């Protein structure tokens, strides 16, 4: 009987250890190919060259173009999602009657459940033509549409996490502010948001991490030209859409083109890992505050 218990515990432990194996696997795969990559390409060139053309005959390996594409689309996304998401969070937490909140929240959750490939289609086939009526010089593939739609996708992220952060603020603070005659707006801006700031910051960091890791929206709508530029009306390429481009092609295993996706992937992984870790520590610190 004791043996059976021990065997079961061992099997369950094995299941749990697969999570560690996954992380080790990710790091191993990315490092293995990247190290091989950096034997041919110097790290200096990787980080300083402003051209990224591994698939052309004249090869440049400067990740800055991909980084600028990633940065541009994510920045537009956050610029859209943060004000709207935060406003929604404050509104739902402090103004909306309970019934209103209850019926509206599911809709926001639906936004979060839509597959990103659908958003990509939406961006290319509907948003871009619409924007072109306003600004005819907008190219078919551009980072503006992609960024806007990514922002829409991220709104529920920020609004939901920020709302949780606001909800966690002790009622006593709210009541103190109201008791002194503050309006809801003043209470929100001067008391609630500052008190919930670490939770809100966490939501923004996680949203950024989500945005830079997003693939399909940019792969469909932003184009496939790596450009070192901040112009949102021209095509651009992010780290993620570059990886898609190569995967759909015929890069043979072991070729330099094949290795570039791992080097680019490693860069992406390091950024998201950093962001996720920072948000984890902030969350831990702020949870202790209200325990």
């Amino acid at each position, binding site marked *: 009987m004791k043996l059976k218990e021990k065997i079961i515990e061992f099997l369950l432990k094995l299941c749990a250890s697969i999570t560690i194996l996954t992380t080790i696997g990710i790091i191993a795969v990315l490092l293995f190919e990247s190290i091989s990559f950096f034997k041919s390409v110097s790290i200096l060139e990787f980080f300083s060259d402003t051209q990224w053309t591994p698939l052309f005959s004249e090869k440049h390996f400067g990740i800055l173009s991909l980084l600028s594409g990633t940065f541009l689309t994510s920045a537009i996304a956050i610029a859209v999602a943060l004000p*709207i998401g935060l406003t929604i969070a404050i509104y739902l937490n402090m103004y909306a009657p309970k019934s209103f909140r209850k019926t509206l929240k599911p809709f926001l959750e639906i936004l979060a459940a839509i597959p990103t490939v659908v958003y990509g289609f939406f961006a290319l086939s509907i948003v871009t033509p619409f924007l072109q009526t306003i600004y005819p010089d907008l190219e078919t593939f551009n980072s503006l549409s992609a960024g806007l739609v990514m922002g829409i996708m991220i709104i529920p992220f920020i609004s939901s996490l920020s709302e949780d952060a606001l909800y966690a603020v002790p009622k006593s603070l709210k009541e103190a502010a109201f008791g002194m005659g503050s*309006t809801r707006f003043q209470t929100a801006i001067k008391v609630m948001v500052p008190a919930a700031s670490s939770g809100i910051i966490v939501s923004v960091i996680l949203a950024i991490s989500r945005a830079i890791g997003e693939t399909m929206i940019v792969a469909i709508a932003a184009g496939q030209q790596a450009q070192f530029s901040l112009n949102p009306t021209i095509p651009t390429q992010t780290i993620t859409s570059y990886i898609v481009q190569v995967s759909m092609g015929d890069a043979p295993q072991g070729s330099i083109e094949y290795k570039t996706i791992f080097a680019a992937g490693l860069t992406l992984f390091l950024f998201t890992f950093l962001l996720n870790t920072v948000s984890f520590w902030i969350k831990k610190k702020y949870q202790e505050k209200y325990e």
Partner: protein
Amino acid sequence: MNNLQKNRLIDAAFKMVGMLCTLLGILILVILLYNIIRVGYTRVNWDFISSLPSRKPEEAGIYTAIIGTLDLMLLTIIFAIPIGIGAGLYLEEYAKKSRLSTLLEINIANLAGVPSIIYGLLGLGIFVRFFGFGGSILSGALTLSLLILPIIIVATREAIKAVPPSLKEASFALGASKWQTLQKVVLPSSSGGIVTGIILSLSRAIGETAPLIVVGAMAYVPFVPHSLFDTFSVLPMQIFTWTTRPQAGFAIAAGAAIIILLGITFLMNGIAVYLRNKWQNKLQ
């Protein structure tokens, strides 16, 4: 206007803005759905579902994509569910609070935030190349399983946490072993939450495209896969390929395929939410 009036005005204005922003979210959702349906609805019919893809947009159908999606989901379920529940059980019921268990928790939280395309690279390096499974359904399913594992683990843990400790005490006091208690008391009580988590994770997996592209889901698969090692296509991938084709007919086909994908996704999410409400009421 004195200070008080000014503040009142700002308050009322913000209330307006807040309501508009919230309604904006819904409005965008409506616009998105309306436009997609408008583009694609004409092609949503049985022919479409039962046809193979084709180079001619009018004849292209999603048959292989649907079969591929179903096969992939089935395999993913087989891999991800036992491992996910097992890991959740271990972390919640066996792992003592130690440096190791904290490490495991941090690791899972991190894995949940890793971009899905990185999972694709993982699948490419390990399953496709290292294990030699090639760009097959097997590789795709294993990759997706790893992707949704953190979701299932977290859902399992939350569901188990909600079981009152007094029930476990009662079971132990009657002479049950740890595994008997988990099997007969804890798991049955937490099954609602676990099933909800599983459905949500699968609904997420159905819509995943990027990792499968990297693993090698082929863009043009005009045959139905027969074995675990065949190449395959899934619905979101089909949508992607059609979206990137210039012909207008393919845009319509993409729209139609999206309608079907959204239908499946919303159905699954709806079931999960319904189950969650039912289960939460049972606990009260």
